[in-house]
């Protein structure tokens, strides 16, 4: 490849960053920069106008006709319904009273909620929005540091892409020809490991800097009388809901996607029992859902256009070319791949990154030699999970971290994007720590699939 051929697609990334900071909506910046380069490619004879047809194909085939994405509006609906009907509020109030002696108790509760949600869905947009709707107002009221709250919510909300069921692991299974069950089993321990790292970090931070996560004032606690009744009122309804959602999946009544619908319906029923339901409430929840959902899908539409033009202009080849130039082997190649995947995460979503990296490096990675560290027939599985842990980070890295955008939109009354960017940095570092652990101790990935007899 000539230097120009390498630089042209890579300069798309540079222009995107500049344009994003103009403050024009992210979705349309992605589309606009993509179209600008399509035009440029057309002038250079690298792009034919008819190729633009594929923008429509991609918006339709990958986004509109995608049955798994249907879970997003239903989870958002559930979140808004729980928030507006006051159910969420009761729960978190009671949680903060109960956990008042635990350092960072509320943040810990959010991580646990995120982990539970991760076991029901793999849809990051849905879980981040829901956690933001439910937990952010309470965290703000309790005087939590904004950056900390932002980091906790966005990182816990992205666990779903790693902890099974996960669409990302299914797609990776296809691309690498690894059984989905192996990947699901392999991702469980790393997923909970990350969740554990978040918990430890929160406790340590709460002990070191208590001002960032203030405990509930004794005066507030004293106001509470008849705790058991409060617990019943606050805990029972959401517990029933969680049991319905998880139970319908585990009991074999619903798929994970359908469980989102069960949850949304259940949240509405709770609002009826809570005597807060009205047609006006339903209308407000539906409108709120439509708006947040449109924001998420707007980004999907813009991003699919952007990555398509990037690929047509030879972006994938440029990246592979750069890796080839370095001519590395075994551990160094593996580390380089991890670094590249991390860097790509600044700009692309997991699907595009897996399409760039996995098909090309599948045969190469299979032939690597890690001595006794990893048996040769398990290298691909171990690699895949390491990539998956790495890719979860792509949701969190500025400037183009989708989880950060979802949080920004759902929590716009409380958080600025600057606060979110700062808050997520420690969690990104925790992610990297988790990745390094998986690489250093392959058993974290390989033990469970082996135990399950795969």
């Amino acid at each position, binding site marked *: 490849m000539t230097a120009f051929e390498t630089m042209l697609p890579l300069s798309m990334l540079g222009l995107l960053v500049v344009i994003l*900071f*103009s*403050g*024009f*909506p*992210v*979705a*349309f*910046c992605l*589309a*606009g*920069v993509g*179209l*600008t380069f399509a035009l440029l490619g057309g002038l250079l004879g690298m792009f034919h106008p008819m190729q*633009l*047809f594929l*923008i*429509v*194909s991609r*918006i*339709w085939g990958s986004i*509109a*006709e*995608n*049955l798994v*994405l*249907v879970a997003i*509006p*239903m989870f958002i609906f559930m979140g808004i319904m729980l928030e507006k009907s006051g159910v969420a509020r009761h729960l978190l109030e009671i949680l903060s009273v109960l956990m008042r002696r635990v350092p960072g108790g509320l943040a810990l509760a959010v991580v646990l909620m995120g982990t539970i949600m991760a076991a029901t869905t793999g849809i990051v947009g849905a879980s981040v929005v829901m956690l933001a709707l439910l937990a952010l107002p309470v965290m703000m009221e309790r005087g939590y540091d904004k950056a900390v709250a932002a980091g906790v919510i966005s990182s816990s909300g992205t666990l779903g892409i790693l902890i099974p069921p996960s669409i990302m692991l299914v797609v990776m299974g296809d691309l690498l020809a690894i059984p989905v069950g192996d990947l699901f089993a392999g991702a469980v321990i790393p997923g909970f490991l990350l969740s554990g790292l978040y918990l430890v970090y929160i406790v340590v931070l709460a002990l070191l800097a208590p001002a960032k996560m203030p405990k509930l004032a004794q005066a507030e606690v004293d106001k509470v009388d008849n705790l058991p009744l409060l617990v019943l009122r606050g805990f029972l309804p959401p517990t029933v809901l969680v049991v319905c959602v998880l139970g319908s999946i585990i009991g074999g009544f619903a798929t994970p996607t*359908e469980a*989102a*619908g*069960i949850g*949304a*319906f259940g949240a*509405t029923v709770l609002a009826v029992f809570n005597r807060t339901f009205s047609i006006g409430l339903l*209308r407000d929840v*539906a*409108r709120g*859902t*439509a*708006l*947040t*959902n*449109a*924001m998420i*899908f*707007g*980004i999907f539409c813009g991003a699919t256009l952007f990555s398509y033009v990037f690929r047509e202009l030879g972006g994938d080849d440029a990246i592979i070319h750069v890796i080839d130039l370095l001519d590395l082997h075994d551990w160094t190649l593996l580390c380089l791949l991890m670094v590249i995947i991390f860097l790509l995460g600044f700009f692309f979503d997991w699907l595009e990154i897996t399409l760039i990296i996995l098909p090309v490096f599948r045969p190469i990675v299979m032939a690597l030699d890690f001595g006794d560290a990893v048996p040769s027939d398990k290298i691909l599985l171990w690699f895949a999970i390491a990539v998956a842990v790495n890719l979860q980070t792509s949701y969190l890295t500025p*400037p183009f971290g989708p989880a950060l955008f*979802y949080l920004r*939109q759902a929590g*716009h*009354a*409380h958080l*600025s*994007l*600057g*606060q979110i*960017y700062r808050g997520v940095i420690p969690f990104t570092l925790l992610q990297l720590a988790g990745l390094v652990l998986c690489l250093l101790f392959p058993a974290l990935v390989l033990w469970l699939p082996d135990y399950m007899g795969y």
Partner: protein
Amino acid sequence: MSLLLASAHRLKAAARGIGTAAAWLVVLLILTVVLDVITRRFVVLGSTKLQDLEWHFHAALFLFSLGYAYVEGEHVRIDVLHTRFGPKTAAAIELVGALIFLVPFCLIVLYYGYTFVERSFMLDEGSASQTGLPHRWIIKSTLLGGFFMLLVAALGALCESLAILLGAPPPESRHGEHEEVGL
């Protein structure tokens, strides 16, 4: 100027009207899922059709609310710098962005989308799974409807930002209520 503001108002109201109507689709979506989950244990209603219907509802929902979300200012922005801009600078950015990014995006999707829907109509395309819903062109045409409403919303934003640049008072910003600390 008043003509510009009046047009902006009308265009935005149109996008908002369609969006608020489409918002109810989420309720239909949830009911469809619940119906499918409950009934398929007992009777064969045709799950493939219901599951097709789910993404049909969702496609129409998100497409028709793209423009609605734009007029309501719900499309997320990296406003780290944006909040420091004055109203005129912000209006200029909106004007340029809508003109060179958003309007061409809509026009391209509409132009190629027309071919896309027309092909489906000519074939009277049905579900690829044989047991699903027929007449795919109906749902595919929401692509045109949705992006047309986004175009309408974009034209509304164009008119409004042009009016602001010409001296009209800027509307209240709904994202401006928190203090911005930057990076």
